[in-house]
Structure formats: C-alpha cells, structure tokens
C-alpha cells in the first residue's frame, strides 16, 4: 500500500491531528529509552478511543503492516521501537482516569495515564497504585502492564501482574475483548495474567481495571550508610533471610551517591561506599520494632551510620534521589547502559563483587542503583557512545553481567523486559521447547505476527516457526515412545 494512501486512510480513522507523518517529527519515534536499537516507523498515530485503535488495527491487518504499541517510550529494552517499520500506535492521547471505584478496590483508566499521576489522583481517596517504577513520573500504566514492570515497592506489594484485574485489548482482527474486571474467579483461562508482560506482542491495550491499594497508616524511611557495597548487600540478604518484610530495600553505590548527593542536597559523607534505603510501612503499632530489627542487621554488617528521614519532606527527598539516580548519571558520563538482571537474594553479595570485576575488566565505570530486596540488579555502565571501543566494551560488559546472573541461578530481566535488547539471550535461559510453548500462546492471540514483530523471541526464530516446531509434536512423541 502506498504510504500516502495509508496516511489518508489513517487520518480518516483518527482525525488529522492524530497522525504524525512529518519525517522530522517521526525521528523522535525511532527509539525508546534503549538507544542501542533504532527503527523508523512509516507513520505514528495517536488515537483517542478504543474504536479508533480497532480501526487502525483492522487497516493494518488488511495490508499486513506491523503495529507497534508505544506508551511514553521510557522502556529500556527497545519494546516500543518499530524494528520493521509500520504504524506506531501511541497511547499519549488516551490518558484519562475513567472511574475510581474504591468499594471494589479498583480504578478504570486508559493506557496512556502516567503512573505517578494515577497515584496522585488516587491520593485524595486514600489509595495508591502500588507498582512504582523509577521512571514513574513519565512512564504510562499501559507500558507498566505490557512489561509487567516493577519498582522499589514490589518487595512488599508485588509486581504489576498482581495489580491488574483486567484489560481491554484490541486483537489482531480488530475485535475488542475485556480480559477481566475484578471478579476473582471467572471461568476460562487467565488472559489478564498472560497479557501482562507480553510486551505489546499479542494485542493493543486500550483500557485497564487496576487494583488500588490503601495508603498505609504509617511509613518510616531510613538511610543506612556502609563503607562498601558488600556490607550493604549482605545486610539485605540477612534482612530477607530473617523474615522481616520491609516495603522497600534499595541500594545506591559510591558512584550513584556521587551523582545524586549534590543535586538532592543529601549531605552524605565521602566515606559512604553504599547507601541502603529502607522503608517500612503498615499500621503504626510495631513499626518501630520492625525498623529497629532491620537497622540492627545493618549495624551488625558494618553500617557506619543510620540516618532516619524524620519528616515527610526528608522522606520525599531521599526517594527523589533514589528514583532520579539514573537521570543524574548524566553528571558522570555522556551515555550509560542500564542492565537489568535478577539473582537469588543470597547470591547478591557475590554477584556485586563480580560486577566490580567486570567494571575493572572492561575498564568502564559501573554505578549501581538497585532493588536489592528482590535481588534485582541494575548495573549502570558508564561510557561514551561516540567512542567505538567504549561502545563495544559496554555491550560486552552487559553480556558478562547477564552470564554471571544466569550462572548464579538468576534471569536476564527482572522488570525492563526482553524487547530487542535481550532477545538473543533468551536461549541462555530457555530451550527450544520452552520458547515454542511461549510461541504457541503468542500464536493463539496473534497468528500473523501483526503486533510488535521481531521482539522477545530470538532473532531468526519467529513465533510462527517455533509454533510449527511444536505442532510437529506428533512425530516427536512417536520417536520418544518407540
């Protein structure tokens, strides 16, 4: 189909203001937060309703044009990048909170609602949306659902998947389904569960019923300072092992502290090699006891100082420093590569040692700001993208982190997703049979690879091919039983 004709038809569906086809404007859509991979869409549309999305999907399906969903584009694995061109559907204009239903503990919103804005809107009701990725001031709930995003408070409240009751989704034929609404035991399969984390590859989400969480009666935040990251890591391992359940356990290392110290006027001493941010919440009663136990473990692991954030303002300041640490990396280096892997929590101290070794081996500074309580690492490799050798070493260092994490019994992504960035590492974790089962699920939603093609599954092993392998199971079974 001619591009001009396509654009004309799209204008008819979403209106003239809903189509971006100017080549300069399109350039801002060639990547998401993962700048390593880029791809140019033919056109970007910004629908305002489910009906418009359905219209665009039907058009795309008719002509076999890929459809790439995009929220705020803050993703770090290339999930919103149009690898094979096509139509990017941005949810930017679908940004309304439609209904707050506290009696049923849920909220109905469009996918383009910004995570932080949602919690702000829920606050007057005494509620919050618990998943809180560090990018929450920019990222959208649609992106959170697509990536099954995490955040510091996952430690206590669980990942996004535990906070989605149902989604409205446009399928590959343009039909629209609701996967659930908050009724806990609808018959059938858990479609909401499999849609969450499917990275926009099986349909396009147009609304969601999300679970809302009552704000805690009381919150305490303290910052424990350690001479080095080893001490902080073992403190975290011991807190988890001792059965205490803080709301968040976040580590920043020396480089990260350096990046945020001045900007957020934290006044942390130079001697601090690592800061552990501890938050506990719940009813007021017992909270000090819990905090006392946690800080006791810190002191036994060599903490040099424990600083309580006494006022709400101090708490907000500490959290702002933590959540904006990635942005603050700009003070240290022109570019960074943020790696996201997870290890079992007892392996954290050893894995952090290995990250230090990798930094020395590839001669690149690595800062660490991470969800220690979940064992979720975020080594931030600092480099200059214009320098070819540094570029190459950054990629190799990231690969080494993945190998170390897998060796320690971990996985290659905890919350950022596979996208394009890690698709070729999937085979390190999964066999062809494992991937074929995932492909089978994918095929039952999107048999013609319309949505976000070229993601998640390893390059050169398309879903269709993997699913076909699986269908050849009869022969396999005969072979096996003979």
């Amino acid at each position, binding site marked *: 189909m001619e591009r001009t004709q396509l654009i004309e038809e799209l204008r008819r569906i979403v209106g003239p203001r809903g189509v971006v086809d100017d080549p300069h404007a399109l350039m801002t859509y060639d990547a998401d937060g993962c700048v390593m991979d880029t791809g140019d869409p033919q056109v970007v549309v910004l629908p305002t309703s489910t009906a418009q999305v359905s219209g665009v999907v039907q058009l795309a399906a008719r002509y076999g044009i890929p459809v790439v969903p995009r929220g705020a584009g803050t993703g770090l694995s290339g999930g919103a990048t149009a690898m094979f061109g096509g139509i990017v559907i941005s949810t930017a204009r679908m940004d309304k909170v439609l209904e707050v239903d506290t009696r049923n503990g849920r909220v109905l919103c469009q996918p383009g609602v910004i995570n932080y804005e949602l919690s702000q809107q829920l606050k007057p009701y*005494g509620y919050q949306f618990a998943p809180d990725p560090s990018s929450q001031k920019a990222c959208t709930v649609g992106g959170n659902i697509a990536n099954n995003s995490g955040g510091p408070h996952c430690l206590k409240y669980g990942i996004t998947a535990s906070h989605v009751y149902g989604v409205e989704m446009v399928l590959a034929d343009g039909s629209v389904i609701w996967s*659930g609404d908050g009724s806990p*035991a609808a018959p059938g399969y*858990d479609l909401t569960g499999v849609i969450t984390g499917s990275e926009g590859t099986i349909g396009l989400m147009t609304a969601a019923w999300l679970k809302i969480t009552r704000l805690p009666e009381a919150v305490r935040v303290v910052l424990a300072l350690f001479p080095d990251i080893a001490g902080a890591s073992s403190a975290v391992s011991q807190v988890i092992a001792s059965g205490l359940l803080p709301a968040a356990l976040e580590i920043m290392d020396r480089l990260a502290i350096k990046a945020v110290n001045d900007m957020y006027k934290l006044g942390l001493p130079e001697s601090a090699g690592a800061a552990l941010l501890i938050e506990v919440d719940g009813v007021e009663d*017992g909270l000090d006891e819990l905090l006392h136990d946690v800080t006791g473990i810190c002191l036994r692991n060599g903490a040099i100082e424990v600083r309580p954030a006494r006022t709400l303002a101090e708490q907000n300041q500490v959290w702002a420093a933590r959540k904006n640490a990635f942005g603050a990396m700009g003070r240290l280096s022109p570019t960074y590569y943020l790696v996201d892997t997870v290890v079992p929590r007892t392996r954290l101290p050893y894995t952090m040692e290995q990250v230090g070794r990798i930094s020395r081996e590839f001669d690149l500074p690595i800062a660490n700001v991470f969800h220690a309580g979940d064992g979720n690492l975020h080594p931030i490799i600092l480099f200059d993208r214009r320098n070819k050798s540094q570029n190459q070493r950054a990629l190799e260092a990231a690969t080494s982190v993945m190998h170390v994490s897998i060796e320690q*019994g971990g*996985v290659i992504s*905890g919350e950022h997703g596979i996208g394009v960035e890690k698709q070729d590492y999937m085979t390190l974790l999964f066999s062809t049979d494992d991937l074929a089962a995932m492909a089978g699920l994918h095929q039952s939603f999107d048999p013609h690879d319309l949505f976000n093609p070229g993601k998640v599954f390893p390059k050169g092993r398309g879903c269709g091919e993997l699913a076909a392998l699986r269908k050849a199971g009869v022969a396999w079974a005969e072979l096996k039983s003979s």
Partner: protein
Amino acid sequence: MKPLLSQITSIVGESYVIESPADYPAYAVQGRTPALVVAPGSAEELAHVVATAYAAGVAVVPRGGGTMQPWGHPPVGDFLVVQTTRLNRVRTYEPDDLTISVEAGMTMEYLDETLAPNGQMLPLDVPIPARSTIGGILATAMDGPRRLGYGTSRDLLIGVQVVEASGRTSKAGGMVVKNVSGFDMMKLYTGSLGSLAIIVSANFKLIPRARAAATIACAFGSQAAAFALARAIHESQLVPVAVEYLFGPHPQPLSLSGRGESTPPSPARGEGGWGGEGSLLVVRAEGLPAAVERHVRDVSAMAERAGASGVTVMRDAAHESVWEAINNLPQSALVDGDELLLRLSCLPASLERALADAESLAARHGLGMRVAARALSGLAYLRVRGDDAGAQRQFHADLLGRWTQLALLAGPPALKAEVPIWGTEIPNLSLVRRIKQEFDPENRLNPGRYVV
C-alpha cells in the same frame, strides 16, 4: 489396550500400573473408570507416559490427591489416569532465598512441614492439606481465606515445568522473585484444570511466618450487620490477612487432616460468639505482636459498633484449628451426596447482595446452606444441602439467573449433566478455544472437563 499396557509398564514398572482400575473405585473419575492408572516416578517418566498415550490416541486425566476430581464434567472417551503423587521431592530449597522448587505431587502438608523449621510458609490455605497436592492446587487455582493478605497461587508461583499434551516438556519463569524473561506461562497453566498441560514441578516465592497471629470472630444477627463490619475494615487502614464471612452452623475445628489434636476454641469475650449458628465475620491478623494486638483491639471495637452479638478472640491452637476448619469448608471431597458445592464469583462490593440472594433462595426452597466467603474479595463457596433434588435444581437455576459466574464444583451427576456448571458467562470463549486448540489440538488432556 494390550500394547499400550506393556509400553507403559516398561516405562514405570509393574508396581506402578493398575491394570484393572474397575477394582479400585477411588480412581474412577466421576463414575467413569479409566483404562489404566499409572503412577510415574519422575517428570521424565511422566513425559514418556503422556507421549505414549498420545501416540496411542488415548486421553490423559492428571490426578494428584484426587480431592478435586469432582470439579468439572466427567472426562469423555478412553483415558488413563496419571497419578502424580510419586513426584514428591524438593528440587531446590535455599531457605535464605525464600524460594523453593518442588515436584507437583507433593502434598501441601509435606511442603508446610519442609518450610516450618525455617520459619517460612506458602500461605495458600488449601483444604485437606494432607491430600491436596501442589499440582492440583495450581490446576484448580483453589484459593484460601488469606488471599486477602498474601494473594493466591497466581501471585506466589514464580516458575513452572509442565508436560504438554504430546509429551513435550517445557518450563517458564525461574527461581527469582521478579522476572520478566519470557511470557508468564505460569498464569496460563494456573486454573486451567489440566486442560493445557500437566504441571510436574513448581517454584514458589515464600513468605516468612508471622511472629504473632490472632483471630477475631464476630457473630451477628444478620448478614447486613456482618457486612457492615467488613466494609468498615475495607475502609480502614487495618491490614488483616483474612476477612471471612461464614453462614450456617459455625465450623467445628476438627483436625480433618489428621494432624494434631483438635482444640475447641473457648469464648474469650461476650456470649453468643463462636459455637452457634448464623452470620459470622472472622478476621485473621498476622505480623508483629504490636500490630496484631492493634487489630484485635480495633476490630473488636468496630464489631461492637456494628452490633455484633458476640466477639471471640482466639490465639495459638484454637486460632490454628479454627482456620483449618474454615479452609476445609469449600472442599469438594468432603461434600456429602445430598450437597451441592457452588463457587460464586462477583465484584467484591456485590458479594453482600449475592449472598443475600443465596440465603433467601435457600430459605425459600427449604434447603440448608453453609457459606464460606472471602468477604473483601468477591468470592463465596456455598454448600447447599437437601434431600429434594427438585428444590436444589430450582435453587441453582434461580441463583444462576441472577449471578452468572456460578460454578457447580460438586453435586449429583444428574444435575451436573444438565446445567451450565461453569456458569452462564464464560468470557472470551473463542480466544480460550484458540488457546486450547494451540496447546492440545487433539483434545487429549482432561477432555470435556473444563470450559473447552
């Protein structure tokens, strides 16, 4: 069947095949006798058995402890029962990681005993833990009262290995508490009633056992008053781990799992509390001692304001045994021949209305009814008793007319055969069919039993 029998015997050994299941009525699935009962000793053997059955064109009915075999329709066609209880090993357990990987035939009780010495738990509150297996709990997505505080198996399952219809083995997830590497197949298999794949092992995120716990059982003269307390708790900033609405004779805390002595609870406060009949709201608090005491104080006071006729506080053995009895209420294996077991699902705020309908319909049709409902989650299990089959049928039809997500989990075969046992509203059926078609195109896994 002869060649199949010899093939299967060569895989698992003679001792683990029952050639004449007709002699063992316990293995019949809702009155239908399997061709063979096979008990593989490992995931590999199980895969081999399934592949062999697949090649022979025979269907497979997976079975754990058998406690939930009354669920769904009887299987259609010839089938093998594949019994998973020999798959009962711990695969990996590093207590300090708070994760465990176990084989699917392990009972919940055994898992619990494995975790207890390390002060850990998997708080799923399953009925009959001495018989219920991990695989069965996942396949049915059976929930428990503490879903309010800890979620369901859906929230705690972090990895899974399955054998698919053709005998192919695949896995998903991992041994970490946060993981977006690949699709979340765990969610697909959980609650699929063995219709997509047979779960052979499962990895869980564990929860530290609470330092303190207490039960506050509040008796009410009316359902409305009990739900007024539930609403007040929902609106408060209290964080109980369970808020259970009970109706009917108060459950007797017998130790049905055969574990330990039963300890009858002793009323601590007020007369007319536990022990009688009628509406109860039972609240469970867990956590730090000070936090638990706060819940005891606040909930007791709120109950009195809501007009409770009695408040009973229970701790220790009484607390434990009361919850054991509550957990067992919705168990299909414990339902008598003249009982229906129904599961009603709705939005949490609609539950009160749904139960008011159920209670008035039961009264109108002269049927006895016991209710165990997750009061803040929109889920209720109803046990409806009566010797008049016509009255039961009419009750079911009337309730289904008003509440579409009503599953008949156990009941007389004649009734099950003629009513929509999964309710009248099965969302997204065509998509659900496509998934079944993709995973089990020949319809060999639990054929006919679930919605597709």
